[in-house]
């Protein structure tokens, strides 16, 4: 597939993009972030997005929080990073506090309970489809597929703690990639 043309966002554009993302990101923002950044606004290619995401997963803090900082910084330096993260958290902060104030009134309504259960199930679907889309980066890379499956089994299957798992898996994976390329 031919690579489509990419666009460079302004500081205002970064704020607005992440503001909308924060407003619409029910049940995890990451799949929506990929949709906005790669498919809709075309700020980054899929490969650039994967690169930033994998770096952000190695830094402390929420992945999507770090990703907003990384994307803002990539295009507009520190002011861009500040605009992106503030856009991302502004609306959810206001909404979560407002929800906290009114929640008690509706927490016993069965319709509301059922609705949130359905919402969560769809959100799980978003996450699965995102994992599958990211996995296309590993086509024809058997070592990469093996590492990804090992991580999946370690974290989701055996519930191993994250930090030691990453400390072992990262050097192994990087070593494998160096051997393959050499």
């Amino acid at each position, binding site marked *: 597939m031919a690579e489509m043309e990419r666009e460079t966002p302004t500081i205002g554009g970064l704020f607005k993009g992440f503001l909308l993302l924060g407003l619409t990101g029910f049940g995890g923002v990451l799949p929506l972030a990929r949709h906005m950044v790669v498919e809709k606004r075309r700020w980054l290619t899929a490969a650039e997005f994967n690169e930033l995401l994998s*770096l952000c997963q190695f830094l402390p803090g929420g992945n999507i929080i770090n990703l907003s900082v990384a994307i803002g910084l990539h295009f507009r330096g520190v002011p861009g990073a500040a605009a992106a993260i503030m856009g991302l958290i502004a609306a959810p902060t206001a909404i*979560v506090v407002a929800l906290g104030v009114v*929640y008690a009134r509706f927490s016993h309504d069965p319709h509301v309970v059922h609705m949130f259960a359905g919402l969560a199930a769809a959100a799980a679907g978003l996450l699965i489809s995102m994992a599958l889309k990211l996995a296309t980066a590993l086509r024809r890379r058997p070592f990469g597929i093996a590492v990804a499956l090992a991580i999946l089994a370690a974290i989701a299957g055996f519930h191993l703690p994250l930090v030691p798992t990453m400390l072992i898996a990262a050097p192994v994976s990087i070593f494998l990639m160096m051997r393959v390329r050499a």
Partner: protein
Amino acid sequence: MSETLVETLAALALIFAQLSLIAFGGGNTTLPEMHRQVVDVHHWMTGADFAALYALAQAAPGPNMMVVPLIGWQVAGFAGMLVSTVAIFGPSSIVTVIALRLWRRSKDKPWRAAVQAGLVPISVGLVAASAVIIARAVDRDWIFVAITALSVAVLLRFKVHPLWMLAMGAAVGWTGFGQ
């Protein structure tokens, strides 16, 4: 309530700034420590309150760290919300900025390509693991499995905004069908 407001705000700032720097692998990894500080150490709320706030934050839009501003609000009102928000997002963001600058500077170094290529499979594995963990937690009935499967199929096949799938899930859930 022996703490003054300033003491409470300072405690919130310290707790969340620390959590910000140890939150490797996303916000959910810090929940046990957050719970310990807020419930056991400072007695700001009961364990049940904490669980309720967490569920609420999960149901709201936005990043999954949104439970933090909510805790800040619950403990010390508007000032508490502000202090907690800056403390949880500030330090990790500064680390991200510094790390990315170092990363950009080493653009032409040969080791960078290997590191980059090596991190991608781990990233794929982590997202897949999150998907499995979340799906296992929510898909307890056939109707939820069906909603999840339909979302995956539609999103892989068509270029549709993911929000439509969430609306579909919420609408089907609202009817209570199959639950």
